[in-house]
């Protein structure tokens, strides 16, 4: 069965379900924005919701779930590894805000 035939065989019902889930999660992000919590906690909650949203969209809207498991792992591991690699600068960002000098 080709990819196109597989897509044809499943209905629009699942797509609508994922769409409404994404709408609800987007609404949750807006609700978090009005919570009386600190910026860092708000950021962490919103990022968690955004990651769930992105996962749902990639798996079901972009049909990553129906691809070969090896490809799914390739996309997931490669992307997550590089994204984690970009996080090295946060400590320096905090150093800037407290005005600590550069190390010599």
């Amino acid at each position, binding site marked *: 069965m080709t*990819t*196109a*035939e597989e*897509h*044809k065989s499943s209905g*629009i019902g699942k*797509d*609508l379900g994922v*769409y409404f889930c*994404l*709408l609800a999660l*987007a609404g949750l*992000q*807006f609700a*978090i*924005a*009005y919570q009386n919590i600190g*910026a860092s906690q*708000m*950021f962490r909650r*919103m*990022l968690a*919701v*955004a990651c769930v*949203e*992105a996962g749902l*969209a*990639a798996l079901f*809207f*972009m049909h990553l779930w129906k*691809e*070969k498991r*090896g*490809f799914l792992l*390739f*996309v997931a591991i*490669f*992307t997550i590894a*590089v*994204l984690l690699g*970009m*996080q090295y*600068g*946060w400590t*320096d*960002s*905090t150093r*800037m*805000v407290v005005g600590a000098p550069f190390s010599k």
Partner: protein
Amino acid sequence: MSQADSTLGGHAAGLTAGPAFSIPTKKLAMWLFIIADTMTFAACLVAYGFLRNGSVDWPRPFHGIANVALMTLILLTSSLTMLIGLRAAQAGNKIGAFRWTMITAAAGTLFALLHVREWLRLIAEGMTLFKNPWGTGLFGASFFSITGLHLTHVTGGIIALVAVGVRYKAGRYNADDIEVLALYWHFVDVVWMFVVPLVYLLNLAH
């Protein structure tokens, strides 16, 4: 058969063994583009977060969520209409696929217009690339860079939607081309899911 011939034959067999991961070449190329573009957007968003975290007077210029909520709703809905268009194309319904692709393009255009309206409002309030009335001037550069990069992707997507839709209707493209385009459009939607909380919702003026 010489050793050279057998070596060449081995290489040729490797080159024609079929697409990687059994995915059509165009689709694989789009996925590789998406992965690379994810890195571009991630670098921009991490740099934005770095500057925001390191600035004590980061501006909070957004007074309400109505505009960004409407933009989010439109972009999410355009992903659904793109999916409906793809399903129509895979079912061989040319008119339906063309219609839904054009509806998606219209939704993208509406999103872009709302985005430009947001920009014009901020510019009218005195925000430029290097200064603004509320706090550090870094905000303008980072805001316009991230949202501008996303708006560029949306604009490119709208042009591609119209071009591919018209060629699909004319019989020059098939459902696989619509699928590749749909991947791009969903990616633009996924990026927006991260731009909204970081750039807009964390900077609401309470």
